[in-house]
């Protein structure tokens, strides 16, 4: 049963082969318009394998849980499993640490410890006699990501076959989708940090290539460059963080590092702090956290399905995944267990807040969604920062589905509305494209966190994590979380308003997208509804008498073998907090509705009259409340705060990036001109020309007349003789 877990390398291998096949034979053998079949088939196989892996993993966890009653036997099995994990793959792997340590589960507070399945082969590279292995590490977290990546990737592959049809580079598009899927899968099952870097960079390159897919236009390539370079900045942190971890523990092995942190604890606190700060920079760039988030909205220059796959559901969560993967490091480094505020939680919370604020100021539907992604990623990072590992991963899981659905919906809208993403040229589309509209609304409700959609459950867990904390609560994070919940609901309602309600403001005749696009939308929408069921709290399940199915993510995905060692605790569910979260979301929706309605009447400002024409007459009588909310809450957020944030974003952060780039170029020019050419080169040239002018001077003496030479000869002889005879 564990076959797939031990041979997990097949999972990234298949899309990688698909990449090569499409790239090498796509145009010639397969035919340019048929390459999507290769990609879809490959990802389909991988999806099946991932599901198999999930089933295998769950079985494995079940097995180890049932053995828990018998400690001795449990240990024995763990050893056996470790052995089979490393040898059954037919690779000359070593008996791994995983097989030797088995004691963590016993004090795990009621949770079974299930060892990760590590398959590795030695000799990937070596130094001073130490061989570094390459291999796969499969545990619950990996399996969770496998499901997310392959599912979204499969749907995007299918969706794209219509959306990108007839594109100038259809073949390249599918090739890079395959390569991206391969890289992302390689990343999530990395056994060591170097592999992690490899995957991390490769997804970045695919992102670069796909953002710049239409590279004939300058803005697209600028956006691609910006994305890649911003990520490179974060990669400095990744490199240094990995190096610090290697320097401290002498290994790249993720499993060994996590266990070592658990054992050593505060002995290595300072090193872990440094490593965490460095790695945090990497997270900021990859997962669009403040202050390195600016590339993500620009990255929307790529094709929309790519935005859905890479810049919403999968690649951008790489940073979150990495934190989760190296959680003991961050837990120790940032003292998550004992503090009530820390860098990670603050960056996450703050990013969530400013991302949500910025989403109000956008007219481009994809940019709204991009800022929303920034905000939601901030949520996940914040969750990890407050110690809510499961909540973060659960939110990652649910968010992937509803955000992908939103992006694909936006793509569908644009497909209908003549390839524009400007909401001012949309409107009233609910009549023309009912499927897109329905799925978009469902996903919006999920994102807003309305009961009982998926987002509600995962957001609630994050708020719960902030509320309970570990040893102490994280009050600021709780406030951030609640405010963001409100804002999220508000800006998403605004999007729906502009896009689907009112009269159509664009040109041409909008139409519903074909089935090949709407079916993926519906699948994602269904997931947006039911994904929450994967980690329902026990009290809720008790209502249905299905207590055994509660906390699935927590039970199966959590790497208890690491987390138990650092003593991570799980807060009990809180009904009232859930109510608060729900109220926030509903309030956000309500406020927005009122805002748009309020501008209809004669008291409204003239600039907002067209919203009135768009029609929200049934909200008219709530005028006073609307006035209050609009001017004080939404107005203050929209005008000063969001604009200021946007201004800061464009004029300060962006400016700093641009200025730094220009400054580097200018100083490069300056150094080149004055130091390189001016000083160093001139010194060399001066030596040369000095020799030359010396030669010119001496040249006068070369008269060509024998007697002059003779004079010189005898004169010199005389002088030398004088020196020898008299002086010496």
């Amino acid at each position, binding site marked *: 049963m564990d076959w797939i877990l031990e041979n997990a390398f097949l999972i990234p291998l298949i899309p990688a082969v698909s990449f090569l096949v499409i790239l090498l034979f796509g145009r010639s053998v397969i035919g340019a318009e048929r390459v999507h079949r290769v990609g879809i088939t490959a990802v389909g196989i991988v999806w099946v394998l991932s599901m198999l892996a999930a089933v295998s993993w769950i079985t494995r966890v079940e097995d180890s849980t049932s053995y828990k009653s018998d400690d001795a036997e449990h240990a024995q099995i763990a050893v056996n499993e470790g052995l089979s994990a490393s040898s059954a793959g037919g690779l000359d792997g070593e008996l791994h640490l995983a097989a030797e340590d088995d004691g963590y589960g016993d004090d795990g507070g009621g949770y079974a410890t299930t060892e990760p399945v590590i398959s590795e082969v030695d000799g990937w590279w070596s130094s001073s006699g130490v061989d570094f292995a390459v291999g796969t590490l499969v545990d619950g977290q990996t399996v969770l990501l496998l499901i997310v990546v392959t599912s979204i990737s499969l749907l995007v592959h299918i969706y794209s076959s219509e959306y990108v049809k007839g594109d100038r580079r259809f073949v390249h598009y599918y090739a890079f989708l395959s390569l991206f899927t391969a890289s992302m899968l390689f990343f999530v099952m990395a056994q060591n940090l170097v592999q992690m870097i490899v995957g991390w960079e490769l997804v970045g390159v695919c992102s670069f290539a796909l953002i710049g897919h239409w590279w004939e236009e300058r803005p697209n390539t600028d956006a691609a460059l910006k994305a890649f370079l911003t990520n490179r900045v974060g990669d*400095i942190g990744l490199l240094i963080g990995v190096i610090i971890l290697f320097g401290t523990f002498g290994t790249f092995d993720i499993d060994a590092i996590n266990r070592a942190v658990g054992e050593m604890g505060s002995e290595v606190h300072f090193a872990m702090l440094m490593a965490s700060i460095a790695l945090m920079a990497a997270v900021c760039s990859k997962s669009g956290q403040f202050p390195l988030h600016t590339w993500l909205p620009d990255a929307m220059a790529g094709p929309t399905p790519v935005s859905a796959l890479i810049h919403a559901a999968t690649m951008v969560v790489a940073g979150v995944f990495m934190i989760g993967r190296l959680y003991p490091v961050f837990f120790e480094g940032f003292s998550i267990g004992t503090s009530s505020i820390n860098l990670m939680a603050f960056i996450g919370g703050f990013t969530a807040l400013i991302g949500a604020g910025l989403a109000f100021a956008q007219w481009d539907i994809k940019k709204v969604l991009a800022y929303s992604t920034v905000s939601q990623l901030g949520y996940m990072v914040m969750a990890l920062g407050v110690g809510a590992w499961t909540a973060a991963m659960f939110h990652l899981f649910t968010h992937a589905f509803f955000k992908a659905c939103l992006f694909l919906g936006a793509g569908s809208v644009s497909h209908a509305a003549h390839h524009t993403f400007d909401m001012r040229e949309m409107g009233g589309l609910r009549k023309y494209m009912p499927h897109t509209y329905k799925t978009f609304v469902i996903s919006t409700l999920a994102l807003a966190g309305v009961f009982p959609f998926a987002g509600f459950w995962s957001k609630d867990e994050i708020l719960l994590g902030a509320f309970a904390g570990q040893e102490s609560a994280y009050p600021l994070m709780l406030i951030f979380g609640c405010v963001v919940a409100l804002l999220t609901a508000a800006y998403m309602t605004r999007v729906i308003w502009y896009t689907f309600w009112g009269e159509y403001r664009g040109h041409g005749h909008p139409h519903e997208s074909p089935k090949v696009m709407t079916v993926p939308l519906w699948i994602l929408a269904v997931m947006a509804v039911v994904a929450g069921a994967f980690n329902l709290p026990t009290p809720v399940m008790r209502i249905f008498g299905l207590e055994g199915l509660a906390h699935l993510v927590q039970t199966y995905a959590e790497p208890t073998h690491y987390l138990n060692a650092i003593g991570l605790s799980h807060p009990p569910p809180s009904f009232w907090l859930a109510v608060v979260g729900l109220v926030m979301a509903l309030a956000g929706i309500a406020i927005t509705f009122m805002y748009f309605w309020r501008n209809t009447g004669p008291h409204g400002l003239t600039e907002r009259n067209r919203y009135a024409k768009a029609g929200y007459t049934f909200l008219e009588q709530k005028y006073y409340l609307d006035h209050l909310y609009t001017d004080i809450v939404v107005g203050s957020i929209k005008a000063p705060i969001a604009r200021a944030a946007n201004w800061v974003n464009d004029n300060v952060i962006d400016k700093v990036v641009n200025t730094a780039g220009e400054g580097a170029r200018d100083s490069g020019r300056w150094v080149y001109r004055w130091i390189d050419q001016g000083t160093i080169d001139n010194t060399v040239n001066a030596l040369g020309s000095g020799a030359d002018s010396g030669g010119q001077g001496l040249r006068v003496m070369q008269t060509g007349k024998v007697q002059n030479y003779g004079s010189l000869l005898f004169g010199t002889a005389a002088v030398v003789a004088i020196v020898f005879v008299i002086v010496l």
Partner: protein
Amino acid sequence: MDATGFDAWALTLVVFLPAVGALVMMAVPRARELELKMIALGASLATLAVGVYLLFAFDYGNAGTLQFGVHKGWIDAINADYILGLDGLSLPLLILSMVIIPLCVIYSWEHIPEPGNAKALLILMLILASGMNGTFVAQDLILFFVFFEVVLLPMYFMIGVWGGENRRYASLKFFLFTLFGSALMIVSFVALYFVATNDAGAALNTFNMSELAAAAGGDLARGTQAIIFAGLFMGFGIKVPMFPFHTWLPDAHTEAPTVGSVILAAILLKLGTYGFVRIALPFLPEGAAAWAPWIGLLAVIGIIYGALGCLAQTDMKRLIAFSSVAHMGFVMLGIATLTPIGINAAVFGMVAHGIITGMLFFLAGSVKERYHTLEISRLGGLLKSAPRMGWILAISAMASLGLPGLAGFWGEFPAILSAYSPGAGLSEGTFRTYMVIAAVGTVFAAGYLLWLFQRSAFGEPKPEWEGHVIADVNRYEWAAWTPLIIAMVLFGWVPGLIFGVVDDVSTGIACSIGTAVVGDCPWTG
């Protein structure tokens, strides 16, 4: 160590086969160009065939010891012997050199630069091949020096005859710079001959490199070692080239013909770094330890400075040339840490840089041939007019900026890694600062390479090229480039191919330095 049978001849063949080819070519009239090319290709491929034999016959379990050894008398008057040998350090570089030369010959099939004369150009290439191969296998200082200098003149003529507009200036600059370094280097060699002692304090009076390495400086005082090291440092550092001795490089590269640039970048620069690892470090451990912080400093300055220089360039070839300064900075940083991982990284970096930058120069040559300019602002839309070439440029640029999965990464990352904990009692604080600066350098690298790629490959082709046919990669180019692209990807995914070979030697060197300087070696070989 002396080998028998064919093994005893293998290295001699590797060194002299190209020279024999050059001799044969001299006898063939200039007009019979095809035959001349066939002879050149034959000679270089025959050398490569011996190289393949070496690859298979090499004992990888004993990569740390010299194999295929030859030891014959040569110039008895000065105790210089004809000693050749191959170990894990020489092998990758030797193979690199043997691969690059046939590729250059193939590339030259239809790309003989102005003013023509394929015969002379190919003969020079073969002489270069002899010199370079000889440098990598020579195990006697005088022999090493002879081979080291043999490469100088052909390259001088290559630049001076087939170069661009400013070729005289560039070739002279190259020649004088290198000769200056060589002069100091030979002084140091002679000094080594006279002052090097064994542990017992008896003078060695030998040029035999393995004996000198085994002595590891003997009981020479740190000051003496540092002075001798300074001479070697100048000789090798100019060749590398290290900041601030790098100014010959952009000029030489810009003016040189394509194959000249390729050979220069791919192999000639490696002679310097190879010299550091093979001669300077093991012979003078104390000197190396004394100089290491300064080498490290110059290396990181080179990384940042080279990158800044790149950002300021408007000429594609000159940009690539400046990037060499930055990349060799990583190599030198690895060497300066005096750790096995650093030296491993350096050797990997050398090979990777040879492959990648060689490839980039090939591309620059082909771009120049098609557009008759390398002015970046006049290029653009390469992906549109010649898509395959554009993609190859993309892969090469990505490899050059150190993308994992391609060869460049394994030169950079371990070099940065090694600076975290330098060996031989070097200051951790200093080297960790270097580490951060070097890591910042990777961002710059991405910046200038992508900037180059964006300007030259993305976008629409410039209007001035309307009506011009920009041909895509032709079959000679495919033949010359495919092995390099394959190597980039192969080494990117299977770095153990090089690390595994070099590791024994680099651990040995680092260990002997550690033992000599701080009296202990934390690495087990």
